[in-house]
């Protein structure tokens, strides 16, 4: 685990240099697939990149006071955390992981939604506050399932290192956990049926209502990076580990795009659920997951 490997992972692949264009590409694939499923044409290639350019050129109003200072910092830290989460993914077999980087990945994946909630409150707007409350409720609900699924696999393999988890053989438990993570991803990425945070007809733009220009561009970029990191996590858990780095990268991107298409299909075919239905759904998932997953993980540890 030397400095050059770490830097190349965080800055080049799958870190910043790969993740930022990949974020725009995955967002474009999502919008285009959604459009095709609705028999429309959809946006031209790399449309999120043009959105980013346009937003960078907008004039941002003066933001006085401490809450204004906070408003400016939330987006940048979201982007940094999401890019860091992308950088931690064990795509290429190298020695750059460490025992416990699973915990770091999970905490970095939480940061964008935490900071979205904070942004809604510090923007001092009614719609921002309502959107943040909804996002916070949804966050608690899906995180129970998400964290239980990931910790379940980790406990069964007796390791917290992402590299080891990716390399271990698949078991029934792993597929249950992948399914549970896939069920949480629509809520994490604000897609139907759990897109309550983006409920346009109800609360304008939710937490990002007062955001303008470059700050909004950073939030959209953080959202795209969250897509890359979350779908990448599912992809490394699903895909077999290949020795050749280029083949491994290609397989990683292919599996991520598959997950993107599955999520888009779910989003195109469902309607938005209200907050009580969403929380109840995740509560039921959590109960099922406790019964199947955690108990079998513990059983595998006791080696019955």
């Amino acid at each position, binding site marked *: 685990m030397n400095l050059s490997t770490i830097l190349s992972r965080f800055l080049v692949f799958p870190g910043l240099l790969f993740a930022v264009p990949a974020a725009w590409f995955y967002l474009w694939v999502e919008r285009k697939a959604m459009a095709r499923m609705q028999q429309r*044409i959809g946006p031209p290639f790399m449309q999120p990149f*043009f959105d980013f350019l346009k937003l960078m050129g*907008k004039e941002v109003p003066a933001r006085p006071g401490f809450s204004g200072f906070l408003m400016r910092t939330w987006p940048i830290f979201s982007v940094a955390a999401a890019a860091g989460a992308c950088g931690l993914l064990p795509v290429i077999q190298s020695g750059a992981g460490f025992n416990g980087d699973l915990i770091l990945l999970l905490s970095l994946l939480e940061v964008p939604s935490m900071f979205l909630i904070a942004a809604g409150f510090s923007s001092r707007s009614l719609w921002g506050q309502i959107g943040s409350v909804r996002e916070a409720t949804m966050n608690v609900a899906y995180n129970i399932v998400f964290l239980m699924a990931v910790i379940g696999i980790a406990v069964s393999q007796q390791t917290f290192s992402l590299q080891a988890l990716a390399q271990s053989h698949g078991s029934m438990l792993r597929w249950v956990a992948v399914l549970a993570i896939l069920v949480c991803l629509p809520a994490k990425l604000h897609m139907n049926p759990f897109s309550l945070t983006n409920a346009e007809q109800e609360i304008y733009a939710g937490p990002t209502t007062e955001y*303008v*220009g470059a700050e*909004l561009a950073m939030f959209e970029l953080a959202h795209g990076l969250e897509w890359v990191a979350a779908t990448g996590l599912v992809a490394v858990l699903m895909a077999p580990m290949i020795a050749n780095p280029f083949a491994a990268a290609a397989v990683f991107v292919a599996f991520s795009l598959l997950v993107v298409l599955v999520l888009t299909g779910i989003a195109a075919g469902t309607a938005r659920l209200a907050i009580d239905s969403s929380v109840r759904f995740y509560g039921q998932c959590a109960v099922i997951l406790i019964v199947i997953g955690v108990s079998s993980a513990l059983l595998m540890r006791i080696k019955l």
Partner: protein
Amino acid sequence: MSLWKKLLCLGRRKSPWLFHMNSGSCNGCDIELIAALTPRYDAEQLGVKLEPSPRHADIICVSGPVTHTAVGALKTVYGQVPNPKAVVAIGSCPASTNVFIDSRVLAGPLDKHIPVDVYVPGCPPRPDAILQGVAKAAQILAEHAEAKNLAGVNVTHAQQASGTAEVKA
């Protein structure tokens, strides 16, 4: 023009985000605007997104003759949209109050209150005509963004061509 400015112009032309404001309309034009987002006309092929918050948008699409109660809201929303911005008047109502010309609740056509860039005639205009108007507004944003960004001055395409500029707070 430097590379960054060229990229910004490209972005503005290819990604017009709309905010729709109804200032007393009969809803005919609003329905046609929503129809422009349906699969048959698909506004998203131009990169158009209907944004929920005025702070996210570049182009304000206004429909309806401006009623007295809508004037304050209209000016607030216009102030909230960040520069550079463009205004599209949809239908004949904002251009000239149309059939409601004798009404006592109206505060006049739209260009009395905010500078208008593109007028889309029709009662209601067809969705493809609205899309044409939005595409023209995106082009105006891309070409005249410099003029539109001068502190506090918002120059409409028409005034730009005739060489006059008014300060509209």
